[in-house]
């Protein structure tokens, strides 16, 4: 039996938009499930354009950051594009501390992120 999705997914104008259902992305089991689900979305696209919104997220861990890096690497291998959006200021600080704000393209809103796709 397939496990319950931890994501809300919709595709609009070739962009796969992903939202987290969980407010806390801390638990490794959940992170692995989320990572596998997003990997399947990437596999299904020829040139993936993914937008991940953090609008509902209050907490994340280094394991979640690791999963995002793996997702980013996978998308780049397929010449795709990844955008992150709507990150709470406290969580954005985690990206700044780890300098991952330099690795990821982060936008204030989902609309801004959608406009940025080439």
């Amino acid at each position, binding site marked *: 039996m397939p496990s319950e999705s931890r994501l809300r997914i919709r595709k609009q104008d070739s962009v796969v938009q992903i939202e987290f259902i969980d407010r806390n992305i801390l638990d490794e089991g959940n992170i692995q499930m989320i990572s596998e689900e997003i990997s399947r979305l990437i596999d299904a696209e020829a040139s993936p354009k993914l937008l991940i919104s953090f609008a509902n997220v209050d907490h994340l*861990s*280094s394991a979640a*950051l*690791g*999963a995002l*890096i793996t997702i980013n690497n996978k998308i780049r291998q397929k010449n795709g594009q990844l955008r992150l959006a709507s990150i709470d200021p406290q969580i954005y600080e985690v990206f700044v501390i780890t300098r*991952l704000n330099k690795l990821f393209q982060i936008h204030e809103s989902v609309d801004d992120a959608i406009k940025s796709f080439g």
Partner: protein
Amino acid sequence: MTNQPRHSPDAGHSGQPGSPIRHSAVVHHDRGEVEAVQDALESAMAACGYSKASLFAVRLSFQEGIANAFNHGHKNLPPHTPAKVEFAVTPDEVLIAIEDQGPGFKPDAVADCTLDENLEVPRGRGVMLIRAYMHDVRYNDKGNRVEMIFRKPAG
């Protein structure tokens, strides 16, 4: 199967003004057990007037410490091997100690994940996040016990 954490006799809140709220538990690599300690920690912090930002910092550091204990410390040990977690909360500071049963590690040998060449490496950020969010972080010589202190910001 879920193993319930074994709490020490002094587990729970002391209730004495001025005395630290202490808690000590043996936890397994089980989400429910870890969350039970985290909930107790956050209740103690709330009772001592810590802000939402402080709770964020401590929760992140606690989770990273637990992840390091089980994922790295206990990597080559049986999965049910427990770790020891203690905390003491006062209105001024939060002390958390996490001790695993692994061989220990050398925290200074962890590669700097903020270097350009390491940005795309998906691991190795837990230790640096603990250092970034906590005010004092110490490891024992063996490297299997971390003690971290968060001090309540002034004002």
